[in-house]
């Protein structure tokens, strides 16, 4: 199961395909916080049969897409400190109120990246243990959101499994992840291990087992 080299790997779903799978699983009328980076793609794949409200933890509910160059307002930014817009029906609030939305269980879904996810739903995504420690709102989001979705490559750049029996990196939260969307599969965290919800068309469950450290079942 260990030390698969990158050049042996099967090419999985691309990030747009993963994002569209997540977008399909967000129900109409959900309040959603998309993490900085890859998860931001999800909003591009929401179908017309539903309306989703995006929350940005720096006090913005009803976040819209990036502004045109001439519409940039440096007082209107997202949690990644990039200029954004606000949609009709949106609102501003201060940081304590914004995190009341998160901690109080009012955010239906958050979608985050990961370094490691354990078979019991532990998540490590804020620290490699090196460099300046910086956590931002990640710990609040995983502790507070009703459903924590992880969007990730199945393997690290070095070809090691990110889905593991036990995380080795500092945790962001313990037992917090509900579902993982990787380039190889969609998996739920269950009492019995990683449950495959959908398997990439090009790979087998046996292969998935070789690139995953922890019990997998269908």
């Amino acid at each position: 199961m260990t030390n698969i080299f990158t050049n042996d790997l099967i090419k999985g779903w691309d990030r747009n395909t993963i994002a569209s799978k997540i977008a399909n699983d967000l129900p109409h009328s959900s309040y959603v916080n998309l993490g900085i980076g890859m998860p931001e793609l999800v909003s591009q794949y929401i179908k017309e049969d539903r309306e989703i409200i995006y929350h940005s933890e720096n006090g913005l509910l009803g976040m819209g897409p990036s502004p045109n160059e001439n519409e940039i307002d440096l007082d209107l930014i997202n949690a990644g400190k990039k200029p954004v817009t606000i949609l009709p029906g949106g609102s501003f609030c201060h940081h304590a109120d914004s995190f009341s939305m998160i901690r109080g269980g009012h955010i239906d879904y958050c979608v985050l990246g990961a370094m490691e996810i354990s078979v019991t739903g532990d998540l490590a995504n804020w620290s490699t243990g090196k460099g300046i420690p910086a956590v931002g709102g990640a710990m609040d989001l995983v502790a507070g959101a009703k459903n924590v979705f992880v969007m990730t490559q199945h393997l690290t750049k070095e070809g090691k499994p990110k889905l593991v029996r036990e995380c080795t990196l500092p945790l962001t939260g313990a037992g917090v992840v509900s579902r993982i969307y990787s380039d190889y599969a969609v998996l739920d965290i269950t009492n019995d291990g990683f449950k495959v919800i959908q398997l990439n068309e090009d790979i087998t469950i046996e292969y998935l087992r070789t690139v995953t450290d922890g019990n997998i079942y269908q």
Partner: protein
Amino acid sequence: MQINKIKKEMTEILSDVFDGSTIMVGGFGEAGSPIELLHGLIDKGTKDLTIIANNSGNGRVGLGALIGQRQVKKVICSFARSAKGVTFPELYNKGEIELEVVPQGTLAERIRAAGSGIPGFYTATGVGTPLAEGKEEKIFNGKKFILEEALKADFAFVKAETADRYGNLTYNKTARNFNPIMCMAADKSLVQVKKILEPSEMNPEHVITPGIFVQSVINIENPIIETNAIEEGMTYP
């Protein structure tokens, strides 16, 4: 598909409310008190309710009427002795309704805590008084505090001034009071509102309750004015 939290019928907005529900009722005295929603609950006949509110109702309208109909088994409030209170004292003096007294600021903070995912907090309010009895104590910087726990509810009944289809709310003057924090603390917030606005008419800087805390809205354009209703001897039903 568009989000639309606005309901047309009182029966629809109240459809989920069940016997034995815990319901937060907004308002401080009559300001911000959701009289029509409470009357809807009388029509529905829901029983064994626990009410969390600042007061225990005036006259025989709104909360006073609901209590008079014996639909309430317990009231959690800061001040159950208002000048115009009729039905609560009647039942309380007969031992037919329970009362839990909570200091007003502790009541507000316990409600906000529930909405903010804070299961408990420490406060100096009530230390050394009968209302601190049985509560955990803790010393911070040499001073004694007591532990108060979050207070949540199945439903919040709220009155606001304007709403849009997302459930964003504004209030009028001191009718704001407990309403915004009750919206945060209830599983479902049901809001009666004087005026419905288009989302584009709602200034994002001026929203007091963001729609994330609101599940359903009903338009009651000309709500009953409690003071007048009591003067006119109104009773409900």
